[in-house]
């Protein structure tokens, strides 16, 4: 995939300011602030129920944002409909290897470019995506349900890339994958970042994912507990968060 144009003001790529969000009356996030740089892999880690996936959903209009702002390239997108966010270059790969199981691999990828009208552009993007995930090329006309778990995850990521995003939101891409497949998926994530797509990734498998993350946010009970580079993994606070306050 061709390297993307660099974003001029990197400090204004994606910002969350005092975001409070949840689902109906159930508030999950409490005043979350984040700054995501272009061409970075930003990782969100934290224990179950900390609100990691809700951060991604807040950026994609898939949950209720009660307060605060989501700013993308200097524009307030907090109330923007999902399809307008896609047009602005944001794509999401939901948790759980979610593909259109009754559609073929090719049809899944075509649906990824649903907002694109030019057929030639869709074909070009499909070629690029299949370049990233050659295993899908052999299964182009197979139904997605017949793919293995790892292949389904790659298809879900490929579908996200069909929108040629500048920011890719990945929700637990390694969930339920064998260690070898998980490593393959993480390699692909790095490849995508190296080609200029910013990645914001939620991951349970913190140890493996932190190895290649540029920036890490640690979430605890709907609040940012810590953030910084890989060095924060050595902090005692991390152990407390993950082990419920009982250090080993």
């Amino acid at each position: 995939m061709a390297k993307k144009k660099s974003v001029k003001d990197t400090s204004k790529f994606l910002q969350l300011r005092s975001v409070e969000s949840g689902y109906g009356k159930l508030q999950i996030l409490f005043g979350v602030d984040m700054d995501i740089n272009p061409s970075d892999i930003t990782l969100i880690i934290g224990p179950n129920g900390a609100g990691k996936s809700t951060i991604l959903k807040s950026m994609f209009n898939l949950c209720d944002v009660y307060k605060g702002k989501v700013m993308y390239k200097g524009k307030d997108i907090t109330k923007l409909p999902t399809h307008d966010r896609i047009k602005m270059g944001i794509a999401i790969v939901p948790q759980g290897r979610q593909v259109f199981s009754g559609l073929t691999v090719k049809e899944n990828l075509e649906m990824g470019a649903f907002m694109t009208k030019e057929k030639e552009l869709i074909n070009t993007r499909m070629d690029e995506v299949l370049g990233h995930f050659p295993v899908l090329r052999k299964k182009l006309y197979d139904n997605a349900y017949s793919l293995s778990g790892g292949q389904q995850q790659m298809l879900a990521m490929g579908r996200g890339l069909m929108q040629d995003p500048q920011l890719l939101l990945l929700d637990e891409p390694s969930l339920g994958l064998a260690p070898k497949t998980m490593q393959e998926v993480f390699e692909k994530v790095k490849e995508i970042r190296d080609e200029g797509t910013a990645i914001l990734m939620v991951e349970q498998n913190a140890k493996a994912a932190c190895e290649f993350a540029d920036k890490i946010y640690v979430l605890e009970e709907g609040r940012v507990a810590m953030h910084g580079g890989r060095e924060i993994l050595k902090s005692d606070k991390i152990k407390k968060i993950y082990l419920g306050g009982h250090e080993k």
Partner: protein
Amino acid sequence: MSIATQLILNGIIAGAIYALVASGFSLIYGVTKFMHFAHGAVLATGAYLLYTFAVMAGLNFWLAVVLAIMVTSLFGAVMNWVVYKPLRKIKASSAVLLIASIALMTFINAAVLAIWGADVKTVPTVNPVFDALGARVTFIQVIIIVVSILLLLALWWLMKCTKLGKAMRAVADNKEVAQTVGINPEKIYTYTFIIGSFLAGVAGVLIGIEQNLYPQMGVSLVIKGFTGAVIGSLASIPGAVLGSFILGLVENIGIWWLPSGYKDAIAFVLLFIFLLFKPSGLLGKKVREA
């Protein structure tokens, strides 16, 4: 004239009508995930609109046919906007939507009765009879078979080869993921109701030309369409079509041995057999309980 050939031909004609009803029903069920039983009332509306335009208003017959089908398609979309969309907005369950569809069917049947009256109506047409393969067939019956087959092929093409059809299948498959690629499910539901009601409108017009019209006609036809869909597979259009032809053939061949009054009973017996022993239908995937 061979009785067997005649019964098979009658079965194919009945199956073609049931297939049109079942394909629309199955399309709406597959995408929206609830059983739109008012689909039968939409069909009856199509038949009565043909009567209104062709007989009461005295319009050109073909213009009346086109108008009846167009208004019926729009009627389906209006039903979706006025009744089902507000229910979806408050996150009503499929059971609530099913109850709403039965209420809607009852309401429309009553409205048809109030507007056009209880007496049987007829749309007069020229309908020559032919002998084909030792059986007697009318011109309109030939039209029914040809139109049904052409429409079912067009529907298959729409679902497999067009962007709209793929988006409809994507929403049917996973509505939440469909939203993440920019598909607006509400728009897709509108298109689904328009296409499903178009098929019901065509079925209504074809029945209106061939048979008498009466206010409850949609109820028995939607039950036949539903039975056909259950036999083949409720969520699969090819399954619904296959099931409908099987139902048409079994019903018509069955009355060789049974009195013709048992025709509807045959459909219900088949429905019970499939619900008991093969609820996923002939082409359906086995659903594993969580």
